[in-house]
């Protein structure tokens, strides 16, 4: 978009830039990006960010696009953070949907959500002197168990004896357990939550049916994130099993000015590869140009020779 002279505003429900690459496989090696013999999800993200630096793209993180509506020749886009954008084009590059916390599966959990059950912590002081049960075995669970144990009565519950979080955090937690500052219950999973208007206790169960009841005020669940299609399903777009059919000429959906690229789009022969996303984006961007600048002719140029493109990239050439 930046190269062809269009401005993009990027809205992402994650708290960081990079989508699945940064959330699902930041450290895993990737070997099939052309001209990059190997990289990781994180290094790919960082390189792309470096490459788009000249375009000064605005990112709106921790926000999800909730509603879209047609307004004359534009789309009106409303986000969960109450931002409104008016734009001729929307590109949906949403993968398998927006990332949301995985939640407890038992039915009482819904009733207590945000009233005793939390999946993230915004203000840790709210947990002072509380009885807290933390579930999970990754870094978030371990880090918060260690942190909150300084001023609250914490029990860390995990489904197996091993923690997958950083080894150091795991040994700190075990040390705190020895010192009696943190309780660790493994291998246990939640079985039920007791309480009427507020949580009073929880019951946990192991594989052999052994049951323990723990008095508690609140429960924290850190089970990672899952992708949900979310409001996209309500925008009147054709859907095919959680993906959006597009034409391969310009990656437009069934609605003019709405494009879909990357894992979320589908067409005959679609490959869910990062490689494909680049190609799809290049074609969609040029189609966006036609709608954004109907009175201008799009001129195809190469970055190797075009002064215009090099200007947009901030490259100053001395002749």
């Amino acid at each position: 978009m930046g190269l062809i002279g269009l401005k993009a505003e990027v809205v992402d429900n994650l708290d960081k830039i990079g989508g699945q690459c940064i959330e699902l496989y930041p450290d895993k090696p990737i070997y099939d990006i052309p001209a990059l013999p190997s990289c990781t999800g994180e290094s790919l993200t960082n390189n792309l960010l470096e490459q788009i630096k000249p375009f000064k793209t605005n990112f709106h993180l921790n926000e999800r696009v909730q509603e879209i509506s047609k307004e004359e020749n534009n789309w009106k886009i409303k986000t969960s953070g109450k931002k409104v954008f008016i734009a001729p084009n929307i590109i949906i590059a949403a993968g398998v949907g927006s990332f949301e916390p995985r939640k407890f599966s038992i039915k009482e959990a819904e009733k207590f959500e945000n009233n005793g059950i939390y999946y993230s912590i915004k203000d840790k002081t709210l947990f002072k002197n509380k009885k807290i049960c933390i579930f999970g075995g990754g870094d978030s669970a371990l880090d918060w168990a260690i942190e909150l144990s300084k001023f609250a009565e914490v029990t860390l519950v995990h489904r197996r004896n091993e923690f997958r979080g950083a080894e150091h955090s795991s040994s700190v937690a075990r040390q705190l357990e020895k010192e009696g500052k943190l309780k660790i219950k493994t291998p246990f999973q939640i079985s039920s939550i007791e309480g009427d208007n507020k949580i009073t206790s929880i019951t946990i169960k192991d594989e052999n049916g052994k049951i323990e009841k723990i008095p508690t005020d609140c429960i924290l669940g850190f089970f990672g994130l899952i992708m949900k299609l979310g409001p996209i399903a309500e925008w009147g777009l054709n859907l095919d099993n959680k993906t959006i059919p597009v034409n391969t000429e310009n990656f437009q959906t069934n609605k003019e000015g709405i494009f879909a690229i990357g894992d979320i789009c589908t067409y005959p022969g679609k490959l869910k590869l990062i490689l494909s996303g680049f190609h799809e984006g290049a074609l969609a961007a040029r189609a966006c140009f036609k709608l954004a600048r109907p009175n201008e002719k799009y001129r195809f140029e190469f970055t190797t020779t075009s002064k215009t493109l090099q200007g947009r990239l901030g490259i100053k050439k001395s002749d």
Partner: protein
Amino acid sequence: MPKITYIEHNGKSHEIEVPKGLSVMEGAVQNNVPGIDADCGGSCACATCHVYVNEEWFEKIPKKESAEEDMIDMAFEPNKFSRLTCQITVTDELDGLVVKMPSKQG
């Protein structure tokens, strides 16, 4: 061709012939068996192809590696027979394998 039986949470059973070399996940997805989402496409990164392997089969299939065990932490209602189907490759030895899907994947 090896036959794999996928049993949905509601008990509906799907007996599918899956070519050797595919993963048990691909066998389900390519044949529109509901209950296996495979959001990440098979890179052991999302835990939405989670199943419970039939008890008698659990010891017979190749053991899980630590990356899979870590990922199962995030699966929906895991138990000791939990596996991620993207990490199980179909071979002749797996002919007759039975897996059950959880009530949902997340």
